[in-house]
C-alpha cells in the first residue's frame, strides 16, 4: 500500500525533477544577463515574493481572476441553459456566438479600456469576456444533450420548472459544463496577466513587466515561476472540486466501460 503510494508519487515528481535538473545544469555557468542561472533565480525568489508582495500583487491578481471567472461562469451557464433549451433561440444566436468566440479576447483589452477605464472593472471584464465562451458553448451542448427518457420521466412525475432545472438539466449537463470551466480557467489566467500588462499599478503581470523594464531579470524570472505555480495550484483545486461534483460521472463511465 505504502509502496504503491510512493511509486505513484515518484511518477508524479520524476519528470518535473528531471526538467528542473536540466534547467539547473544548462543555466549553471550562464553569464548571459537575460538567461540567469536557475540558482540565481531561486536565490532571488524569497527576496522578491515576500508576504508584503503577496498581499499587494498576488492577492489583487487572484481577486480579479476570481471575479472575472465567477462572472463568466454565471453568465455562461445561465445564457447557455437558455440557448440550449430552446431551438429557436439557438438558431438565432449560433452564428453570432461563432463570430464572437472567434475574436481573440486580448484584442478586446483596448476596446474594453475605452469604456471600462483602466481599473479593476476593466480587468474583470476582460477576463470574463474571454472565459465566458467555452463555458457558454459547452453548457449549450450539455443542455441540448439531456436524455429524452429522463426528460419524460421528470415530466411524468411532475418534476418541472426550477426543480427540473436543478435536479435534471444542470446535473445532466454538468460534465460538459465542467469541461468548459476547465478550459476557461487557463484562458482566465492568461487574460489576467495580459490585462495587468496593459495598464495597472499592481498584480503579477504588472510586476513581471516592471522587472523586465528595470532590467531586474532574475526577479522577472521569479514572476514567471510564480505564475506557473499559481496555474498549477488552481488546476489542483479545480480537480478536487470536479472530483467531488462529478464523482457519479466517473463511476458511471467506469461501469459502462467495464460492461
Amino acid at each position, binding site marked *: 500500500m505504502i509502496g504503491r503510494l510512493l511509486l505513484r508519487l515518484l511518477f508524479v515528481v520524476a519528470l518535473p525533477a528531471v526538467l528542473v535538473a536540466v534547467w539547473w545544469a544548462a543555466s549553471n555557468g550562464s553569464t548571459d544577463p537575460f538567461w540567469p542561472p536557475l540558482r540565481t533565480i531561486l536565490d532571488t525568489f524569497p527576496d522578491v515574493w515576500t508576504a508584503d508582495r503577496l498581499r499587494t500583487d498576488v492577492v489583487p491578481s487572484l481577486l480579479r481572476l476570481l471575479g472575472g471567472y465567477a462572472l463568466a461562469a454565471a453568465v455562461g451557464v445561465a445564457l447557455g441553459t437558455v440557448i440550449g433549451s430552446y431551438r429557436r433561440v439557438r438558431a438565432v444566436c449560433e452564428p453570432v456566438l461563432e463570430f464572437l468566440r472567434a475574436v481573440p479576447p486580448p484584442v478586446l483589452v483596448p476596446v474594453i479600456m475605452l469604456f471600462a477605464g483602466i481599473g479593476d472593472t476593466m480587468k474583470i471584464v476582460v477576463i470574463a469576456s474571454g472565459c465566458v465562451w467555452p463555458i457558454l458553448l459547452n453548457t449549450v451542448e450539455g443542455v441540448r444533450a439531456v*436524455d429524452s*427518457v429522463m426528460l419524460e420521466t421528470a415530466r411524468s*412525475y*411532475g418534476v418541472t420548472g426550477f426543480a427540473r432545472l436543478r*435536479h435534471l438539466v444542470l446535473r445532466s449537463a454538468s460534465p460538459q459544463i465542467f469541461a468548459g470551466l476547465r478550459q476557461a480557467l487557463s484562458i482566465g489566467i492568461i487574460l489576467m496577466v495580459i490585462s495587468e500588462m496593459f495598464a495597472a499599478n499592481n498584480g503579477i503581470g504588472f510586476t513581471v513587466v516592471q522587472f523586465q523594464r528595470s532590467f531586474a531579470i532574475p526577479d522577472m524570472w521569479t514572476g514567471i515561476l510564480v505564475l506557473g505555480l499559481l496555474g498549477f495550484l488552481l488546476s489542483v483545486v479545480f480537480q478536487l472540486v470536479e472530483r467531488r461534483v462529478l464523482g457519479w*460521472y466517473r463511476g458511471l463511465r467506469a461501469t459502462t466501460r467495464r460492461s
Partner: protein
Amino acid sequence: MLDVRGLKKVYEGSGRRVEAVRDLTFTVDAGELVCLVGPSGCGKTTLLKCMGGLLTPTSGEVLLEGRKVSGPPPGMAFVFQEYGRSLFPWMRVGDNVELPLKQKDLSKARRRELVRDALESVGLTDAVGAYPWQLSGGMQQRVAIARALAYEPRVLLMDEPFAAVDAQTRADLEDLVRGLWRDRGITILFVTHDIDEAVYLGERVLVLSASPTVVQEQLKVDLPAERDQLHTRVDPRFAELRTHVYEQIQAAKRGVVRDAVTKSDTPPPH
C-alpha cells in the same frame, strides 16, 4: 377508472405522415391488471404515452376517473423500458425515489417513510445509498418500480419494463409486479411484446393489431389468481391462452382484423 375513447395519434414531420394509432377504445376497471400485447412497432408505446399525458392524441381522449388527461396526472406513475435512462445517475437510489415526492406537498418524515416502504416492497432496502449504476439491470428496474410506488399512484403504466433484463430476473420481476398488484390494489396497465408474459401477468389481455393500431381482441385470463412461474406456465389452460393470443398476433401481422373493438370473453378451448 381508465377510459380510452377513439384514440388516434398521427405523427407528422418532414413530409412523412405516420398513423401510429388509428382508433382505440377500451376501458380498464379500478384495481385491474391489464396487459397490452401486440406486434412490435404497433404503437404500444405511443398509446401508453398518450394515456400518461406525455403525448397529446390527434383525436379521441383518455379519461382517468372521469377526468380528461391533458398532462401527466398526479395519480399516475410511469415505469419506462429504459431503466438506465430513466433513473438519474447523479442521485443515489433513495434520492431518485424521493425526488418526485418533493414536488408533492409532503413532510420530510412522510417522504422518508414512503421511500423506505417502497424500497422494502421491491426488496432493495439496503441499496438506498447506492448509485443506480452500481446496481444490476434488474435491480435498477426495481428502483424504478419503487419510485413509482412511492409516488402513491392509483394507476401504474408500465412500458415493456422487463424487455431489457435477463430471463431469470424477468421471472422474478413478473412475480414482484403481481405481488404488488395484489397487495396494494393499484390499477396496472402493462405493455409488453412478450405473449407469455402478458398471459402470465394479466387478468385481461388486450391484443393490438399492427400499425395503424386498433384493438384486435380483448381476452379474459381465467387462470387462478395465485400464480407462480413453475406451475402456471405448465397449466394446460395457460398453453391454450397463449396459443390463442399468438394466433391473434399472427393474424394482426397479416392485417386480418376480426371484428375489432368487440369484447370477446374467454377463447374456446382448442
